[in-house]
């Protein structure tokens, strides 16, 4: 059982974790940078420790500063939230080595699932479908030609040392492949000092579907799926649960595969297994596992009634899973939208500032997870997420209608926000009918930029 929890994060997720801890009677310690002295998580926690200058590298990413804060306050556990150190296996190990409880999977589980190749091999072994391609580095162009039999065209050639979209080439036929493969190897060597390449089938129009799991190190359950296909520059902007694209049979198979993988790696805590779902071919493929709580976790909480953050704290405190799989049921439909301090009318330019006036949405089926208060100054040093508006209703259609109502109630003055984007999306026929894929929003934004000013 945890007595005093240090929350190694900031913003809305720090507030969310502090609330979950306080609901369980756990004392809380906030840490903050000099830029976050006045932030809501500092105000709500029982204690707060200044851990350094505004730059995240010198504060929220400083392992020595965070461990010292835990030691000085007598905290016995650390919750990392998302981002910052949440998927840093060395930090997880350092927390445990300091004699503290780490709220999350072990450092070894983070390492295993954090490495693309070892995660893919683990998924394949657990019988989870993976995107056809190489099971690691491709040793030679001869081996590469053999892998083409599984992937077909178009095929993606990826630098092993790349990431975030860098070092990727796509070949549409064999001739292109014969040219692109050696070029990609040479480029990767020049750019990353490592010429290693992977190959992967290109899934054309796919939906992003992910399964929430909870594990206690032995047994795991799933809490059904979320669909996060509406993305801008690979960042999710609108998430929902359940997905409207899955048949009951496919949902059962998808969720069972996630549980198999979580149990195969003795997963402990909350995790998310991400898939691409090709709805034309009715097939799903594992892409990666996130070994942390995710931004969009509330939509799962709304449809299942399970408090995922509280569950993480109870599991880390030593409890075995108290929920059986058949007790987890889907009730209604939930949608989350991310209200960011960005100006959608100006290419989503970041817009830090002081909140001069704030009117929160409310009423049935409305949840607002945020660190905002009137008079709060949004610092420019961290990400732009201001609030998550989460809607729950009996049906998806009713949830979208309620979303429009709640957005209309919401007033955030002093910063530009992405609210106009969500009002426009909620009115869009493709969104209402669920006819989209992961690259749909970028095209829609190009065509609808005139609808994104606050006065539109």
């Amino acid at each position: 059982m945890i007595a005093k929890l240090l929350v190694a994060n900031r913003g809305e997720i720090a507030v969310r974790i502090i609330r979950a801890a306080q609901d369980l009677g756990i004392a809380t310690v906030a840490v903050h940078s000099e830029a976050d002295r006045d932030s809501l998580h500092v105000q709500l926690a029982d204690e707060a420790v200044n851990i350094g200058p505004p730059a995240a590298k010198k504060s929220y990413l400083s392992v020595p500063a965070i461990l010292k804060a835990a030691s000085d306050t007598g905290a016995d556990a650390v919750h990392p939230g998302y981002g910052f150190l949440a998927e840093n296996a060395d930090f997880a190990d350092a927390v445990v080595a300091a004699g503290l409880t780490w709220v999350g999977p072990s450092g070894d589980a983070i390492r295993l699932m954090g490495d693309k190749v070892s995660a893919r091999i683990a998924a394949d072994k657990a019988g989870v479908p993976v995107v056809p391609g190489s099971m690691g580095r491709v040793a030679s162009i001869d081996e590469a030609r053999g892998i083409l039999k599984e992937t077909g065209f178009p095929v993606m050639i990826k630098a092993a040392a790349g990431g975030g979209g860098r070092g990727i080439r796509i070949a549409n036929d064999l001739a292109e492949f014969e040219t692109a493969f050696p070029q990609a190897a040479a480029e990767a060597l020049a750019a990353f000092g490592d010429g290693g390449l992977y190959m992967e089938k290109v899934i054309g129009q796919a939906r992003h579907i992910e399964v929430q799991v909870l594990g206690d190190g032995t047994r795991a359950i799933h809490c059904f799926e979320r669909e996060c296909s509406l993305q801008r520059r690979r960042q999710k902007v609108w998430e929902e649960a359940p997905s409207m694209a899955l048949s009951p049979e496919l949902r059962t198979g998808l969720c069972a595969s996630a549980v198999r993988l979580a149990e195969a790696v003795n997963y402990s805590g909350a995790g998310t297994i991400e898939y691409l779902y090709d709805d034309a071919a009715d097939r799903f493929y594992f892409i990666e596992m996130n070994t942390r709580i995710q931004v969009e976790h509330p939509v799962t909480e709304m449809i299942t009634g399970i408090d995922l953050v509280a569950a993480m704290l109870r599991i880390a405190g030593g409890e075995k899973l108290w929920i059986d799989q058949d007790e987890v049921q889907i009730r209604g439909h939930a949608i989350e939208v991310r209200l960011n301090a960005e100006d959608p009318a100006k290419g989503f330019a970041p817009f830090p500032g002081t909140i001069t006036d704030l009117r929160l949405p409310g009423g049935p089926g409305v949840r607002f997870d945020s660190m905002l208060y009137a008079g709060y100054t949004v610092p420019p040093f961290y990400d732009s997420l201001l609030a998550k508006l989460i809607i729950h209703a009996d049906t998806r259609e009713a949830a979208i209608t309620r979303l429009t109502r709640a957005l209309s109630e919401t007033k955030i003055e002093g910063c530009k926000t992405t609210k106009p984007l969500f009002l426009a999306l909620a009115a869009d026929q493709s969104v209402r009918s669920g006819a989209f894929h992961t690259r749909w929003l970028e095209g829609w934004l190009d065509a609808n930029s005139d609808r994104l000013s606050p006065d539109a």
Partner: protein
Amino acid sequence: MAQILSPLPGTFYRSASPDQPPFKADGADVAVGDVIGLIEVMKSFHEVKAEVAGSNVQFLTDNEEPVMAGAVLAELS
């Protein structure tokens, strides 16, 4: 004496990445439109371009220092 001001609040960087040389060394000449640094605001990077020309640039803001909009980044002779 001319000044180069930060157009945005955020974190100031003098080079494109930690392993690269600064856009402008102390004492260098600056032409209109030259990039003299980057401002990181909410994880996105914006180039700071000189709006005036001058010589012998002297930076008043250090690399990785937090700045407010309108802060003096550098002075030119």
